[in-house]
């Protein structure tokens, strides 16, 4: 039981002690703020969306987040808005007017969630041009087929100069360190390691997009959650001639924003990763830390020979990602160790792509994910090759035999075929509801041809 204080629709609230894993959604609904709905409780439908005031350089931005995936204690010190706050003085805000006029609601159950996301988009500080309807990619609607919602989004102009806009010029709330029996939020890596040493059962939580699902859907319960959100070091991003360094706790939305000059593969990876709403919270550290065999980041980073910066009781160390995954959902992390950053060495190979194959084109988990990278000498012969896959084994992996076989070869159809047969010999995927083993194996091979064909 933890008591929590935060700003809700502009008013300070002090939530009564609740069980540690009470979601923000359940709390809000219990308080009579029933605009946010429970449509799935796993971050997939967006019906529960609320706005969080998040840092945007030195000022703020409204970030749409899934309230079903946030535990109430994580809210401490935050500032949030729910749909009930948007129509002030009984006057609909522009987004609400546009949605109503366009026929953007039928049953209306999904509507508050769309409104929240579109509101965040209308007020997005770095928006140039029209509102991007894809920002609502994490909102499902079973009734409308989306066209009227797209039209509502495209009809919006710049955000009006109102109190919501004025708020954004100030910094977002600074999150302070917290220590209580069930919930800790350290401000430094060292303090975090110390907590993990003292309580080996403590569970790290970054964005909570995995942890929240585990709690809601699989009923996992933890006695002690350690939030990484207040550790500035984990939110850093820097680039120099030798490397790109991404803080393990930086949400994907910020990676995309900060790495604006990244090669195309980065956008291929990030724009198909979950939904914008999930990306507003989800982090790279969490995506690697969970060691999911179907996580999208691992194949991408394996193709770049990325390494991880770790911190633990024995101090700091660096480990190649290739050596990090040791088995099904197993990593080389020692007890009380955490990932602090991901390092991508430069130069980034000349040819590098990311491919995601899934049943639905957007916001779906990969059936197969692949990232491939090639470097060449002056004669256009391959000097270094990486063929990395997710979804084809108990962990993300590189197909070393295929990488070796193409060295010294020109990147031609016969070379492609050689790599394909090496892949066919090495991968033993499984069948499940996302795809059959035969499909996975065939697609893993044909993606090599796609890589060759499209370059």
């Amino acid at each position, binding site marked *: 039981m933890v008591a929590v204080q935060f700003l809700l629709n502009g008013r300070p609230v002090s939530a009564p002690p609740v069980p540690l894993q009470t979601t923000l959604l359940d709390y809000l609904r219990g308080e009579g703020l029933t605009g946010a709905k429970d449509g*799935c409780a796993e971050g*997939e439908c967006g019906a529960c969306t609320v706005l969080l005031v998040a840092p945007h350089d030195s000022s703020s931005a409204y970030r749409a987040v899934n309230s079903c995936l946030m535990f109430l204690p994580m809210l401490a010190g935050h500032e949030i808005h729910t749909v009930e706050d948007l129509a002030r003085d009984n006057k609909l805000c522009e987004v609400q007017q546009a949605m109503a006029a366009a026929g953007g609601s039928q049953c209306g159950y999904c509507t508050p969630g769309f409104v929240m996301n579109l509101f965040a988009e209308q007020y997005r500080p770095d928006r140039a041009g029209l509102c991007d309807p894809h920002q609502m990619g994490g909102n499902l609607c079973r009734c409308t*087929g989306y066209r009227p919602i797209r039209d509502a989004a495209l009809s919006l102009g710049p955000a009006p100069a109102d109190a919501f806009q004025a708020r954004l010029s100030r910094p977002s709330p600074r999150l302070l360190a917290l220590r209580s029996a069930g919930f800790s939020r350290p401000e430094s890596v060292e303090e975090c390691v110390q907590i993990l040493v003292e309580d080996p059962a403590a569970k790290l939580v970054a964005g909570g997009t995995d942890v929240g699902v585990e709690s809601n859907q699989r009923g996992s319960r933890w006695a002690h959650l350690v939030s990484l959100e207040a550790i500035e070091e984990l939110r850093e991003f820097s680039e120099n001639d030798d490397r790109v360094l991404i803080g393990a706790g930086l949400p994907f939305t910020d990676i995309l924003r900060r790495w604006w000059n990244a090669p195309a593969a980065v956008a291929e990876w990030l724009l198909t990763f979950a939904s914008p709403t999930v990306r507003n919270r989800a982090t790279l550290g969490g995506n690697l830390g969970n060691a999911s065999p179907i996580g999208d980041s691992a194949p991408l980073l394996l193709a770049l020979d990325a390494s991880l910066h770790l911190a633990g009781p024995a101090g700091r160390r660096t480990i190649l990602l290739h050596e990090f995954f040791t088995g099904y959902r197993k990593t080389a992390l020692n007890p009380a160790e955490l990932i602090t950053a991901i390092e991508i060495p430069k130069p980034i190979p000349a040819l590098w792509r990311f491919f995601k194959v899934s049943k639905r084109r957007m916001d779906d988990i990969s059936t197969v994910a692949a990232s491939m990278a090639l470097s060449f000498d002056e004669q256009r012969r391959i000097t270094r090759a990486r063929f990395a896959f997710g979804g084809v084994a108990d962990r993300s992996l590189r197909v070393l035999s295929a990488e070796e076989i193409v060295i010294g070869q020109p990147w031609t159809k016969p070379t492609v075929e050689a790599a394909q047969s090496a892949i066919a010999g090495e991968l033993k995927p499984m069948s499940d509801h996302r795809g059959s083993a035969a499909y996975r194996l065939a697609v893993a091979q044909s993606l090599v041809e796609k890589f060759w064909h499209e370059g």
Partner: protein
Amino acid sequence: MRDSGPHESARGHVTGAALYTDDLLGRFPRLLHAWPVCAPHAHAALLRLDTDAALATPGVCTVLTGADVPGEGNTGANRHDEPMFPLEAMHHQQAVAWVLGETLEAAQRGAALVRAEYEELPPILTIEAAIAADSYLSGPHRMVRGDVSALERSALKFEGELRIGGQEHFYLETQCAIAWLDETGGVSVQCSTQHPAEAQEIAARVLNLPRSQVTVECLRMGGAFGGKEVQSNPWVAVAALGAWKTGRPVRVRLTRKLDMALTGKRHPYLIRYATGFAEDGRMEGLRATLYSDGGWSLDLSEPILWRSMFHCDNAYLLPNVELTGYVCRTHKTSQTAFRGFGGPQGMLAIEEILDQAARRLGMRPEAIRERNFYREGNSTHYGQPVKDASRIQRIWDELKASSSFEARREEIARWNADSPYRKRGIAMTPVKFGVSFTATFFNQAGALVLIFRDGSVQVNHGGTEMGQGLNTKVRRIAAETLGVPLEAIRLMPTNTGKVPNTAPTAASAGTDLNGAAVANACSELRERLREVAAALLDCAAVEVQFEQGRVSAPGKEPLPFGRVCEEAYRRRVSLSAEGYYRTPEIHYDPKTGRGRPFYYFAYGAAVSEVELESFTGDCRVRRVDLLEDVGDSLAEVIDRGQLEGGFVQGLGWLTIEELLWDSHGRLATAGASTYKLPSWSELPEVFKVSFLPRATEPGVIFGSKAVGEPPLMLAISAREAIREAIAAFGSGGPVHLDSPATPERIFFAIRAQQEQGGPA
């Protein structure tokens, strides 16, 4: 005619103020939460149920079991074949008992502690296994016309088999019911249901109460699509029983995963056929057997199967046909109504067959379709004249022109010739959909309209609002009939205490029926007021006009509507009226398979263009053009919404929505993370929608036509476009493609085409 404006609840939707059943939770002090004890097997005998440990758990109030039921512990709508507390578990996760707790978490903890012992029994998990075991819930049903042996003499004869997947409703609001004992000792229920009268019936049955003791109300639903027609009943029964036993309010709300695991879906089908065509593409004979996967109980599977059989013709004349249908009993959820109600599966079969024939005859698929259209004077294989048959051709021609079909087809052929890894396809399909309940007695509706002395109006009717815009349309009908502005009309939640003995809101007939009943009540009231107004205005009754809240007569100073209402009260003229409507002229005899089951047909057609990629089977919908006959649209924003939303839902059914059960009968795609609905990526890049002009439907409210279900089947054009694109990877020969056309199926279908031969 004026327009109806945006959705009647639009303001409530965008502000979050519109309430749904579960939003009422905070209004019930001392409410208990229910959670089921679920069977871990697809088929098993329940040997023993021990609730002691659960009852000893803090926060657990009680456990509901069969012993608690004062009445009949069965929620099956027609056949009474759904025991509330089964002794034999008939599908994986079926509820065998319910725990009531002070909190949801307490109920869940309690449910985990109920010890149940089972003896596993062999399950039947596929249609093929059901056929082999002769496991049928119903059938054979037959519909026959002409002499099907004609097909033996046809120039082209072939046989085939098509597998059609089911579909999860995925209404955004999951099933929910709250029951409590009211101030006078009756049972009250708030629930999300398309059929409050049946929810009332089931609650009364379980509690052994006369129906007058049970009141059911539905505020609105967060989507339903057929999934809350009968499948909302069990949760109402549990909540009502819980409230009866404990005297406290009880809430049953299914989480998304539970909802998917426990409730029925669109029926999967297996269709086997033999057919014969003349060289010019005319169909000469069709013999088909339709096997639907009904799951564990009957539910609505029979009328759904009939509708599949009625719609095996879609828009085509089947001169010689013999259809046989079976509902298979399997150990799965009990499959149920879903937008289209069997119609989509029947239509998919005939469209499949026509395409297969076209590719064998070397004809264009759209040409073979056109060749077989119904013409004026034709009747269907069940003996109903095809009213307005010429509209099929008219819609076809207009859409072909407005979508530039021919030019785009040639453009696509050129594009494909230069593109080895990506191919585009375009296809066009029609829809003819019969409107009315095939259970004739459901085609009735009631209304209760109350006018208050100030001229404000409450409208009650038996229909339920699930997003389809029924109340938006009804509000306009009431406003125009009474001659008041839209704002003067307040639509009340659907309540069995206001309008009794209602039909479900389904079969696309919600507005046809309830709109007509409301119009009936409003006309009655207007005529009463006319007399009063004539006296006030000092004119003849026929001269009185009601318009926009003003009551007038030529040369007289108009009066506010409220003024006339006040006067009516003073003159002791009743200001409330009941309305009633029943659809005329319809009848159907399931034994002979003949009759006139439908009051009219809704027509439409669609053109879809897709692009496929051979590396992965990825599919993109580039452009969609729809043309639908909605009669005189009652509400353009609503009707367009139904067309687009129905199309995208159909697209989901036919492409990415895949229900998979594992070898133990567990639903492997239970949850939003594994079952994928269309999202933004499925929205067609170009999406054009138009209504057929000059299409007034006589005899239907304001000349309109039903629009809820038909557009779902327009999405068949997208499936056929996919097939066209697959064919472009090879020589253009027949393409086998089971449904849904997932990327994996497309991928392997492309491979099969490529192996058949190089590009034509």
